[in-house]
């Protein structure tokens, strides 16, 4: 059981938490801005060429995925890792140093990444835009994290790896493999001695490049937005609720099932493209099969609350996590539906896709990271959470925001998809392309408002966290389960 002698070292976990809040606000602030740009194009010119939609869009996706989410993942890793392995970072000066180096190198790389994207350095591949020198830095950061994981495992007291550890290890391995292969590129300056030293050209051409990119792109979603978030919920939900995980067997099935099935599903991004037909079909079929392990994890979490549903009413952190599981279920049902060929023919290239991405990222990833960091705050600072009421308000405001976001994007996507394929009585196309754009204005506006709600919620979160750190009532000892909070 709990070893009272272990003093866990939360320094780096704390640093990454600050960064998650910072990057959350930055990345989603840009997101709200570009959402409104689509509704009101004059906003494109506010900052000259630097605020054009096309310039900001990759910055939005990268800051949210690799700024906010990775910071959240590492904040939780440097907290959960020690606790489930029953070993403190402070026991190894080496691992402590690696953790700090990991943080600082990551911070510097993230800043360079934003600057380079603003300066138009991009490889164009979605979620893999960074040019080769940044890729090398990313690899070093990843290796440092690997040392941290396996180093801590090496000196662990608890011999059996808890479920969260499975998922952290899988995140590490999955991203390493995907990132390396998708970013294979030849720096042109090194070959010719001419031109821009930062420029590179992809090792793969055309259809091959697309195959590798979406094998990567889809599974970047898997191994950044899904796998490590499951690692979190398997730790924080049982901990916050004081309930044991519902089923070990279900967690086994879900984990190994997810690992095996997820990688096949990348092909669903390439349906009706020029990749081989059998691969498109495989992508489609495996996407549908993917419902099983995804819902397995989500149901395992929801059933963990069995008999304890009154906590949902009493504890806002439980609200965040239960709704996160629910959005995970929604998102992992919606994705497979969009992967069915006939649905994909309608949905692909439309706003339904960003709609799908955002009910996953805002609802599942965002809510889980928010809950995890607020669960850790009382443990970091030995103080109770500053305001339960504020947390409640944040929850409802952000939930409303997500609902506005995805419902407007569903309507926009399906409307546009239907208009693209509409024909008149003679079989001619009924609408010009621009007709199908102007019709979206109200939905783009609504989406922006939904995003704005979520964004305001982030400030409530940041304020609550800051006040918890500075001005909240001090605790005598670390809370075991439910996080204490002031009304």
């Amino acid at each position, binding site marked *: 059981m709990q070893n009272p002698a272990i003093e866990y070292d939360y320094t780096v976990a704390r640093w990454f938490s600050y960064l998650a809040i910072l990057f959350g606000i930055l990345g989603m602030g840009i997101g709200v801005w570009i959402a409104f740009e689509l509704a009101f*194009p004059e906003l494109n*010119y506010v900052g000259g*060429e630097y605020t*054009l*939609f096309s*310039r900001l869009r990759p910055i939005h996706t990268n800051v949210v995925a690799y700024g906010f989410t990775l910071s959240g993942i590492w904040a939780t890793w440097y907290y959960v890792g020690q606790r489930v392995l029953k070993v403190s970072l402070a026991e190894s000066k080496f691992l402590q140093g690696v953790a700090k180096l990991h943080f600082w190198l990551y911070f510097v790389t993230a800043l360079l990444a934003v600057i380079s994207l603003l300066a*138009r350095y991009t490889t*164009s*591949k979605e979620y893999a835009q960074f040019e080769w020198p940044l890729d090398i830095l990313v690899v070093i950061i990843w290796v440092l994290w690997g040392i941290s994981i396996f180093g801590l*495992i090496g000196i662990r007291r608890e011999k*059996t*790896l808890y479920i969260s550890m*499975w998922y952290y*290890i899988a995140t590490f391995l*999955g991203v390493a*493999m995907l990132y390396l*292969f998708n970013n294979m590129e*030849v720096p042109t*300056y090194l*070959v*010719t001695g*001419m*031109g*821009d030293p930062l*420029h590179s*050209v*992809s090792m*793969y*051409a*055309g259809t*091959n*490049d*697309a*195959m590798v*990119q979406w*094998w990567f792109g889809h599974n970047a979603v898997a191994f950044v937005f899904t796998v490590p978030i499951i690692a979190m919920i398997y730790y924080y939900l049982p901990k916050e609720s004081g309930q044991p995980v519902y089923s070990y067997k279900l967690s086994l099935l879900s984990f*190994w099932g997810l*690992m*095996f099935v997820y990688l*096949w599903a990348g092909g669903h991004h390439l349906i*009706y*493209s*020029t*990749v*081989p037909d059998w*691969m498109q079909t495989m992508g489609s079929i495996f996407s549908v099969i993917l419902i099983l392990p995804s819902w397995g994890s989500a149901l395992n979490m929801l059933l963990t609350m069995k008999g304890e549903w009154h906590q949902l009413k009493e504890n806002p952190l439980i609200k965040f996590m239960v709704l996160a599981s629910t959005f995970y279920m929604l998102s992992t049902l919606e994705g497979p539906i969009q992967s069915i060929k006939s649905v994909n*023919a309608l949905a*692909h*290239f*439309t*706003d339904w*896709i*960003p709609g799908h991405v955002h009910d996953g990222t805002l609802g599942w990833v965002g809510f889980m990271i928010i809950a995890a960091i607020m669960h850790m705050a009382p443990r970091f600072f030995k103080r109770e959470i500053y305001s339960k009421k504020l947390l409640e308000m944040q929850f409802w405001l952000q939930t409303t925001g997500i609902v506005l976001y995805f419902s407007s994007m569903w309507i926009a996507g399906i409307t546009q998809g239907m208009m*693209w394929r509409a*024909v008149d009585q003679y079989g*001619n*196309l009924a609408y010009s*392309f*621009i007709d199908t*754009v102007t019709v979206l204005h109200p939905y783009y506006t609504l989406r922006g408002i939904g995003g704005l709600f979520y964004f305001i919620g982030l400030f409530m979160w940041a304020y609550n966290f800051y006040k918890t750190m500075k001005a909240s009532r001090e605790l005598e000892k670390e809370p075991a389960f439910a996080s204490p909070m002031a009304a």
Partner: protein
Amino acid sequence: MFGWLERNPFFFAVGVFLVIAFAGLIEIVPDFAQQSRPVAGAKPYDLLRLAGRQVYIKESCNACHSQLIRPFKIETDRYGMYSLNGEYAYDRPFLWGSKRTGPDLHRVGNYRTSDWHANHMWDPTSVVPGSIMPAYKHLFTNETDLETAYAEALTVKKVFNVPYDKDLDGDGKIDVPLGTFEEAKQRAFQDALKIAEETKRKDLVDMVKAGKIPEVVALIAYMNGLK
């Protein structure tokens, strides 16, 4: 077995890796060699077009425009012949995009002209009322980086055997000459002047004559070649 794996992290990690690597191995590797073959008539990008393609990438045009026409009548009616695998053989990276906030551009060269593009990039609503695309006025003054484009062409020629300076169709003539940087540059300027004149914009013509190719001219050269 699972209980044992959970107590032996090394074998656990190996197990996870094998399970996740499996799909990529089966899906991607078998078709790799076949998929990169060019269709008859496909040619590598000449210097100006390649430079224009780099501008397209730098500005992330692919964030809103696809280059992939799906094999449906409603798509071929709107955009032209559906896309073929071999047409992309010289696309590094591919630029299919994933979202059509604006229309597909894979065959935009068939139905738009240089002056249309110039007007459109200067003020999209002047040619497409209601357009939500922003203007890209900085492309009218930025100078095209021909040297980096040449470095890329030379790299793919050397490393991937992209057939520059070769007779592809057997008519005894070189199809896409590259040559030295000076030779390639000279041809790029000839092409650029022609396009600048087609745009009917004096500022663009003057800039080319003064020895600088505006980025928008390279971009138009690239888009005119998308057929």
